[in-house]
């Protein structure tokens, strides 16, 4: 059924087209503000979460006994994660990557310059699972090495540079590695592998020179899904620490959750700022609705006197507010997509998450809120219209 009161509202909006459009623009701005602020916040959260979880999706496992290190050539028997423990970890880690890590500190010499830094032994196949090679290639030969960007720039290293590892001692010939690649900067990491000042060597080279075969200082488990962190840790713990505590398990996920909750607060805050514009829009809709009621007093008088129910008069004005809301929300929704996309791409520089449901949901949210704001703003004017005294109203000019 085509409702005559809806018809009347449409005609009234059309009759006062400019005024109605101007009022709707307020809603457009409000919807755009809410939607784009919401999308901005969500995209920021998603993007920061992604950046962080490249670090925090790692479970760090170390031996429960503090271990001492040795210098090159003079290995000491030390406690670490042995082969059977590693197998237990692999078995309980499921599909996730398990990366055993050898590490110690060493002196080294490049050309005639001496330096000191970490030396990390890794299976070359594991390297690309969590490290990025900026220049050159991954380790191919047994005496290839990768170097961190700080070490590379401090010592002017290039692909092919040679590093002598170990303390300078005239009595022995120090082993040499060749720089195959330079790693990208990682900065402060939360997986315990700080490579910016490190030399990465193949695990075979490491155990040849430092011993510790099948005995690892640290084992990292890189999770495919960050949400499984607790159950994976529990599985490893149940398996390995069954009788006595053999390993220590730690992660940085608490840092992620605290940052996520901070970002959530920021999102709420910017949403609140966005809603101020909707409050302004509500006032302008209210104003236009009051004008519409005041201009149509006589018409309201006619409607009431010939038997229109109060509820029907109310409905007519609420329809009018609703139409303004729909126009505003429709245009606002489209503008939100365009403006939201621009804002996200300008401020976050990454629109990969823009069309995800968590982000794009703010457009319908904004639109619904816009329509609701219009209807709420129309409540009082509609109530006022329906409660006019028909005699007084008819007398109005």
């Amino acid at each position: 059924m085509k409702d005559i009161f809806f018809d009347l509202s449409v005609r009234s909006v059309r009759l006062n087209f400019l005024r109605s459009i101007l009022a709707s623009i307020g809603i457009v701005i409000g919807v755009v503000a809410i939607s784009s602020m919401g999308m901005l916040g969500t995209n920021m959260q998603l993007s920061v979460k992604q950046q962080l979880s490249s670090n925090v999706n790692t479970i760090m496992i170390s031996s429960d006994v503090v271990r001492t290190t040795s210098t090159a050539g003079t290995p000491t028997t030390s406690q670490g994660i042995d082969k059977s423990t590693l197998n237990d970890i692999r078995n309980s880690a499921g599909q996730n990557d398990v990366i055993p890590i050898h590490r110690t500190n060493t002196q080294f010499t490049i050309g005639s310059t001496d330096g000191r830094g970490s030396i990390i032994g890794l299976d070359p196949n594991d390297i690309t699972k969590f490290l990025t090679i900026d220049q050159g290639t991954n380790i191919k030969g047994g005496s290839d090495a990768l170097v961190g960007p700080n070490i590379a720039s401090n010592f002017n290293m290039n692909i092919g540079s040679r590093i002598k590892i170990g303390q300078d001692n005239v009595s022995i010939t120090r082993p040499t590695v060749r720089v195959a690649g330079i790693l990208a900067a990682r900065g402060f990491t939360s997986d315990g592998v700080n490579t910016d000042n490190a030399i990465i060597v193949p695990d075979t080279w490491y155990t040849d020179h430092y011993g510790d075969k099948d005995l690892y200082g640290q084992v990292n488990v890189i999770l495919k899904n960050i949400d499984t962190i607790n159950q994976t840790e529990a599985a490893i713990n149940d398996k390995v620490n069954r009788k006595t505590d053999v390993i220590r398990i730690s992660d940085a996920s608490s840092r992620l959750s605290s940052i996520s909750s901070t970002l959530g607060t920021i999102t709420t805050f910017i949403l609140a700022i966005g809603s101020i514009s909707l409050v302004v829009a509500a006032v302008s809709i209210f104003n236009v609705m009051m004008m519409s009621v005041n201009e149509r007093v006589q018409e309201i008088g006619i409607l009431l006197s010939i038997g229109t129910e109060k509820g029907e008069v109310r409905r007519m004005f609420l329809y009018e507010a609703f139409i303004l809301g729909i126009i505003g929300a429709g245009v606002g929704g489209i503008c939100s997509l365009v403006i939201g996309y621009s804002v996200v791409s300008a401020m976050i520089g990454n629109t990969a998450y823009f069309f995800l449901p968590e982000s794009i949901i703010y457009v319908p949210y904004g639109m619904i809120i816009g329509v609701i704001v219009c209807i709420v703003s129309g409540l009082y004017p509609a109530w006022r219209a329906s409660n006019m005294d028909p005699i007084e109203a008819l007398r109005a000019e």
Partner: protein
Amino acid sequence: MSDVPLIRLADVTKVYHLESGDFVALDHVSLDIMENEFVAIMGPSGSGKSTIMNQLGILDVPTSGELLINGKNVAGMTNLERTHMRRDIIGYIFQKFYLIPLLSAYENVEYPLILKYKKRDTTGKAAAVLKSVGFDSQMSSHRPNQLSGGQQQRVAIARALVNDPKILLCDEPTGNLDRKTGFQIMDILTGLHKEGKTVILVTHDPKIAEYAHRTIQLEDGRVVES
């Protein structure tokens, strides 16, 4: 025709509370109007003509006294019941026509049907009534401001008639029309009276009042001649 009056005012008083003091617009008025009467209400301005029309049109309730319309006490009805009574048994014809400006001539006539049946008219009744008052059907899509006064009043009469009211309340129906058109409108009202409607007419014009079979004179809120 039954002996029970269609409209009964018993000792009706209407007092308006103004800042300057109370103003008695109707002062103990008692009056019966039978079904199918043609009544003219006359009197100088301020005599209470409009007030009595508002009472008869159930737009207002008496301060004291009883007003019975179609056997029902107006004061005892809810707002919604009064609204439905206005819609169903009373047809209003105003001096200024009071058509709904946003609706076409046809829609203005259809409107009371929509109020009553909550749906658009598919019976052709609105068009038939519009035709019966001599309105040119070619102009039925015109808005009121595109029509002459006489045409507007025809539309207004059609609107008043479309729900088959028992009572037609006419407030100076010819006041805004030239003499010739005024008489045409009066002819229509006379015809409606002959068809069985109760016609109540407020006018200044004795020539117009002559159409009625009974004239009620008001002065200072009292009936001086009935």
